[in-house]
């Protein structure tokens, strides 16, 4: 009858306190899962809507904070730097947060809006996949 404990989380040699950055990436991935679940028609109960809205709010402000630390996009579009790319990435994250708050509030995202949400998730996931320090791709396939 005795229970056997199991272990999960970071391997022993990689254990450390969680940073603001860790939480931001986790929240972003959670927001992607929430959005994919919405697109796939999973039910949204009242508490779930509240969870989506709260997570979107947190992600939005953290992305805003990160975006403010990046250089602005160059006016010459032919000269897109990594910073500009990163800046756009944070804009996309903010857009995802706005979209998530919208569907959590009961607004239906159909037609072009739905496609815009799908495209935005696609771009963010591509960027996460390109950045090994951000990527943890199996979780992006959860929903």
């Amino acid at each position: 009858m005795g229970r056997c404990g199991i272990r999960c989380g970071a391997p022993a040699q990689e254990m450390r306190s969680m940073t603001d950055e860790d939480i931001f990436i986790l929240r972003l991935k959670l927001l992607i899962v929430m959005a994919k679940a919405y697109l796939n028609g999973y039910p949204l109960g009242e508490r779930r809507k509240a969870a989506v809205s709260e997570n979107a709010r947190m992600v939005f402000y953290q992305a805003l904070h990160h975006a403010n630390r990046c250089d602005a996009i160059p006016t010459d579009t032919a000269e897109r730097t990594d910073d500009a790319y990163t800046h756009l990435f944070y804009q996309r994250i903010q857009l995802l947060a706005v979209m998530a708050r919208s569907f959590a509030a009961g607004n239906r995202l159909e037609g072009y809006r739905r496609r815009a949400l799908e495209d935005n998730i696609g771009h963010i996931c591509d960027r996460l996949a390109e950045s090994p320090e951000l990527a943890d791709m199996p979780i992006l396939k959860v929903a």
Partner: protein
Amino acid sequence: MRIAIIDNVQIAVVDHERLTREFIVNVMMYSVNRDILVFESAAAMDVYLKSGHRVHLIFVQLHLPGKSGFELLRHLKRTHPDIYLIALSANPADEIAAIDLGADVFLGLPFVLQDLFDIVQRFVVENPKAQVA
């Protein structure tokens, strides 16, 4: 059928670290579509349980100010052996002690989102005990 199980589950998070605590609460609230109980100290969790409330699963930060998470694990294992206990720590040296004290899961920080979904799947969705209101 799954919705019925999730409707009845009660999850608590005992952690004084705001960012981690709020994130776990967010994931749990989304996963089970219920309010999640939040306590910043082991003593507050104790008081809640002593008043007769039922909790199905508790996330416990092992290094809490005041009464430690280890003490809480030891106490809960004795008084509420049916509650599933998830021990959180950033120190690998805590693992054996936590499991010995009755933790069902030792969750090493930093965790990934999938770890939390796995815990819900294992201890809530697939567990018939969670159906008891």
